[in-house]
């Protein structure tokens, strides 16, 4: 009886996991292949691993001193600073705005919510020249400040919307009771409501970090050397042999590790779900 109930979940989760994990494994396996192994048919599963792709990504070993290795480490630092700052700022701004939109009525609120989402609607290519112009005249081109502005900008709409959704899930009674008991709204927000939407903040930060870390369109035009991010830096993997597949796959593998770490750190909050869950457990 019990086993029968398990068939459907196992099949669905199993098939999806296969679809999900298969290409990932293929990415990692292929990142270790030599060029002849890469195009063998049927695909080789047992092969002598080659680290050339990883060497190229980090600019060590055979790839040391090559132009391709120039500034890889610096761009890693750039990426960490830019993605983290952008994530913190976007999450902060989004949390504040999301709360305001969830709890207060203000002038043109609907328009504001829409306007804030437009940060995601605008196609980067269409406005790139204008940004480039603006950044260049303000001295922001190829700087951390400029790129932090970009990563904040691309995420603030998403952050506001997700946070509003989570705040909407918190009953307004929480603050009402606090206010009745003589606490300020700021206090109620910080000490009562915020802890309830921890999951939401974690999810928002997680998403923002993903988009900030992988941002490419703006970075490829608005940076040259000083503020070049890692994805932009290592995307330039076309060499004399053609597309440097192993290098691209190695880069993909390396690039995703910080994001997985980030997710691992916030996993508890992510799975905590929304306020109701917390309240439900307490109640």
């Amino acid at each position: 009886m019990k086993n029968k109930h398990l068939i459907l979940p196992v099949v669905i989760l199993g098939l999806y996991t296969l679809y999900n994990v298969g290409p990932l494994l293929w990415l990692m396996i292929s990142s270790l292949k030599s060029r002849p192994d890469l195009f063998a048919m049927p695909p080789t599963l047992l092969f002598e691993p080659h680290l050339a792709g990883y060497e190229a990504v980090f600019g060590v070993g055979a790839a040391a001193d090559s132009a391709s290795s120039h500034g890889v480490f610096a761009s890693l630092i750039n990426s960490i600073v830019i993605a983290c700052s952008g994530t913190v700022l976007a999450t902060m701004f989004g949390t504040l705005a999301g709360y305001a939109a969830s709890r207060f009525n203000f002038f043109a609120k609907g328009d504001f919510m829409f306007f804030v989402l437009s940060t995601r609607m605008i196609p980067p290519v269409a406005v790139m020249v204008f940004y480039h112009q603006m950044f260049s005249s303000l001295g922001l081109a190829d700087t951390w400040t400029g790129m932090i502005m970009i990563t904040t900008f691309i995420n603030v709409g998403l952050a506001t919307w997700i946070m509003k959704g989570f705040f909407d899930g918190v009953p307004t009674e929480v603050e009402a009771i606090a206010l009745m008991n003589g606490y300020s709204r700021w206090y109620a927000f910080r000490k009562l409501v915020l802890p309830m939407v921890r999951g939401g903040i974690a999810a928002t930060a997680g998403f923002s970090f993903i988009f900030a870390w992988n941002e490419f369109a703006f970075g490829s035009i608005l940076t040259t050397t000083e503020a070049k991010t890692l994805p932009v830096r290592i995307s330039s993997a076309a060499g004399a042999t053609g597309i440097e597949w192993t290098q691209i796959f190695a880069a993909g593998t390396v690039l995703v590790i910080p994001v997985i770490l980030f997710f691992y750190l916030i996993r508890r909050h992510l799975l905590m779900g929304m306020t109701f869950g917390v309240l439900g457990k307490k109640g």
Partner: protein
Amino acid sequence: MKKCNRTAVLSGLVLGVSALALSTGSASAQGTSLTFVWHAGTCADIFVEIANDFPGDIEIVPALVPYGPEWHNRIASEFAIQGDGFDFAMWDSQSTAEFAGAGHAASINELFDRSDVLDASLFPPASLARYGEYPDGSGQYWGLPINQDAYGLMYRRDLLEDPEEMAAFEAQYGYPLAVPQTYQQARDIAEFFTRPDEGLYGWGQMGGREYDFATTASDSFLWSFGGELYNPETFEVDGYLNSPASIDGVQFYVDMFQYGPPGSNNWGWDEINAAFQQGRLAMAMQWFYFNGSNADPDVNPHAESTGFGVLPGAIGRDGLFRRQFSVGGQGVGINAYSQQQDAIQEFLEWYFQPEQQQRYAAVCQTGLASVLESPEWQDLNSFNAAFAVALNYTNDYWHLPEYNILLDILQEEVSNAISGAKTVEEALTDAAERQERALVRAGYTIGESEAPEVPDTVISPVGMQEVEVLTFD
């Protein structure tokens, strides 16, 4: 409570670090440094390696971009805002019209005047024209030939020179098997070696929709059959691009896909390389640029038995033989808005010395005449001899600032012809009509002329009566 504080401290820390780094970042040492934009690859690697040995007090900083649209976009975007984000850049030969036409590139003629070292006579005139001249024939140069390239042919010697295969081929086709001199021969050989059950195909060529893959490949056929893309004097496209000779060429190109692996008609250079290296192709059209790796046994298991030659020509409907194929490669141009023109001059004067160019020529294709003419250069590898000959037969598509839109239209229509959505004639006629519309919209006036059946007779040197046989052994 504790957790909240930790989050606050963490966020504060991140912001603090960013602020700190910002202040130090902007105060980094300001020695003279020159930034250049190029796509990454072996040639950029060797360029940087050589540049690192520059004796002067100038640091050369690479700002490498992926090969593809980002490369063009990065340069174009900087020019659009007239910024000095880079000092010089290597751009594709056809972009000269676009960048120089709008005044973003510094004049090389002025550089020649200023410099005691650099002079037009250092470079083969054809190379200088190919990678730097705009408008065509004006003598105004905007780039120096830093990395030359041409379309070439690679083939498996172990197949084409195998006695058994040779005998079987001759028995079947009535003439001896050899490296093809005409596309007609190439088709026979490709057909002969197309053996799907052995995983072997006769001919590899690019038909990808990206960038200029399908266009550079099909143009090589089109020109060899006596076709033209347009009339550069009257800007007429209709009657030229869809002339009977042009259609012959593109039709031949489309037909050649049947001797390639199934599903290969949207391939680009990487897939062609991969298939060739896997031993799936007997012959392939490929840029000389990649020969370095295709001659490298670590990359190409068949390297020892790979031959490099010049692409065939064709006998056109007028009975004449022509051989013309697409030019590749890049010139180096100077950003007119760079504040460091003197430093750029100093560096380029040093870089275009034979000593540096010889180092470069060991890996990539130099544009310096003295190196190209030296006998050591020709013996440096198995393909330089063929490359030197190939440079005599190259042609380029539109040298107009609007080439990008013309290119995109032709890419789309050739792709339509490859996929069978349109016949070659329909595709080229549609392309001609659309390109003329685009030209009119860009402000050109289309003149009128009598478009001949084989337009090449009026525009380019006429073909020859005999098939010209080129061998390199």
